[in-house]
């Protein structure tokens, strides 16, 4: 399986073989997807994942102090250790109705793409490898990562990589969507929150929403559109009462850590200036931060993954950045973030994934694992 033509030929046949195991794949997806898992409250999903690990006969099943679940599928030789991880949390609260709807061609429900599908791959992969009679020479470490989104700041994956008791040859992070992504690098980025508190119209103070509006105008003048995501905004309580508080959540990206630090300094200055002129309390807080870096586009892992996608008839998606890739890079581990299928309405209650591409997504995952197992990251 070490030569590319052989690997590609083998991988191209996998989707049809995997379709025969559709119920196993979808059942794990449904059972995981219906367990609420807001960031910092992933325990129920982690428990389910550990139960699946145990049922699959994996070794070293357990969880760590930050709430990750991990287990090992021993390789026939065990000279390498390949990590496959997926974040367990979703952006939806536990109070959200997590009932999924399953149709022949798609699955609908909150968090189904981000990242119930990715986590279900971690639960299902051992059984699929067994069904397909694929035995890796390398040890396969499967990990459900806690505390990834927002304030979680990828804490689960970072902790695991920093504290792994075995050297990790390469790492894959699985996201539900989109099939074709090959994220091998990370821009320098921060998730940040700008909060504002005012007297709510008393004592001549402005509405907190108006103050935030000033901040937004200044941000847009300072930062290029492609480097700033105005993610969410909330504030106030009623139509006729000026808002006493408001909050803006943003993401900032730069191509180097130095540029990002300089940008943060500039934003601090803007916030201080707006606070001084408005009399409001305005605060800028960095919630999560990732460093720039990653693999070269010509790295063998990237090239192998790209050619595997092509052999499956999937066009690799342009764009290479993911914050998870920075976690691998920070530890000097070759790492990729890949997607499993096509999805729509991401992070909306009617989040949706397509079922048919899932089989190619899993074939891709297995193909990349076999490439690493064949030594492409040595």
């Amino acid at each position, binding site marked *: 399986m070490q030569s590319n033509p052989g690997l590609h030929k083998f991988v191209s046949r996998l989707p049809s073989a995997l379709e025969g195991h*559709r*119920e*196993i794949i*979808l*059942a*794990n997806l*449904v*059972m995981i997807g*219906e367990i609420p898992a807001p960031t910092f409250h992933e325990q129920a999903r982690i428990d389910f994942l550990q139960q699946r690990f145990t049922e699959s006969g994996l070794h070293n099943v357990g969880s760590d102090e930050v709430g990750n679940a991990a287990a090992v599928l021993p390789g026939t030789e065990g000279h390498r250790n390949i990590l496959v991880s997926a974040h367990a949390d979703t952006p939806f609260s536990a109070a959200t109705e997590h*009932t*999924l*709807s*399953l*149709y*022949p061609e798609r699955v609908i429900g909150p968090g189904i793409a981000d990242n119930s599908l990715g986590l279900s791959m971690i639960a299902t992969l051992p059984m699929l490898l067994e069904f397909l009679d694929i035995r890796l020479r390398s040890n396969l470490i499967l990990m459900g990562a806690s505390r990834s989104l927002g304030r979680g700041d990828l804490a689960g994956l970072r902790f695991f990589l920093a504290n792994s008791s075995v050297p990790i040859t390469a790492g894959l992070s699985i996201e539900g969507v989109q099939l074709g992504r090959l994220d091998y690098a990370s821009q320098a980025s921060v998730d940040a929150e700008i909060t504002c508190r005012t007297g709510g119209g008393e004592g001549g103070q402005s509405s907190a929403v108006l103050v935030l509006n000033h901040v937004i105008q200044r941000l847009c003048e300072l930062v290029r559109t492609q480097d700033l995501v105005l993610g969410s905004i909330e504030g106030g309580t009623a139509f006729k009462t000026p808002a006493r508080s408001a909050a803006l959540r943003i993401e900032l990206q730069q191509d180097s850590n130095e540029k990002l630090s300089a940008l943060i300094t500039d934003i601090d200055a803007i916030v201080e200036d707006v606070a001084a002129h408005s009399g409001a309390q305005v605060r800028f807080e960095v919630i999560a931060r990732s460093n720039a870096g990653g693999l070269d586009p010509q790295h063998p892992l990237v090239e192998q993954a790209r050619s595997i996608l092509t052999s499956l008839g999937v066009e690799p998606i342009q764009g290479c950045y993911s914050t998870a890739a920075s976690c691998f890079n920070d530890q000097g581990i070759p790492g990729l973030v890949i997607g499993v299928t096509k999805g729509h309405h991401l992070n909306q209650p009617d989040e949706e994934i397509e079922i048919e591409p899932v089989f190619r997504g899993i074939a891709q995952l297995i193909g990349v694992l076999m490439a690493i197992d064949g030594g492409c990251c040595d």
Partner: protein
Amino acid sequence: MTDIDSWLRSNTFHHSQFWDLKRLVEEKEKQGLILSLCIPTLNEEKTIGKELVLFKSELVDRYPLLDEIAVIDSGSTDRTLEVAAAFGADVYRSTDILPDMGSRRGKGENLWKAIYQLRGDIIVYVDADIKNIHPRFAYGLIAPLIYRPEIKYVKAFYDRPLATSKGTRPLGGGRVTEILVRPLFSLFFPELTALVQPLSGEYAVRRELLERLPFPIGYGVETSHLIDTYSEWGLEAIAQTDLDSRVHRNQPTRDLGKMAFGILHAFFTRLHKHDILSSLPELTSMLRQFQTRDNEYQQVLFEIREEERRPMIEVPAYREKRGIVD
């Protein structure tokens, strides 16, 4: 009369008691049993796919407990049949089974025809509108029949007794159960009040019993099953399993009225059959409800005296005061 508290201890289960599916499958195979799952449907396209995938994956592929998964449809006009077939169920139109017997409209019709169509020594019926479907909805009901030969009929109920370790909580069914069925049972079949949710649509039954039960085709099917099973085989033949929570669509009050009407119809038919109407016994004043305490199920007896005053005009003092003379 069977001691209800004793029955609650011996014949009331929690699905977690049956977590060892490997052992359950071994026991099933040792007994040579064939198990069928029947899902009656009518326009259930949103939930049927999920149910089938979970049951097939967990209870056919992973643990071969079920030998047959069948959908029996009452004439859906949405994609129910297409979705069910796509996920590997044996799909039947109710009208195509025993066509010479004609066709009636109602869930009971599907359940009845399933006895003819399916192969199982045990048939487990699971409604198709369960949003939080889980394999326990089948194995939690089947397991008591496999482990306890004397049990013939296992009914589901839904609670979360493991969520609290101390204290007392009321336990009960839906609106129709609490304001119609339980008071009726308290009056006429007190032992059946031990069934926490007599109207739940999930139950597993041995063929030897099913084939001897008459089937109201509408809302009265669950009530009549319990009365008939109890009358013929006693409370010892019945068990119930707590399946934790069940999320399903709420029914509007108007539909509950239809349900109550159907239940009353089945109920009075049985009162007539058992000659209870013509020789009405003295009505008890005890209403039986249920609660959990420290993970045990207990009955709670309420004495409700519904004495009747005669018409005021018959009261001498009233007649005297009002100057009424004969």
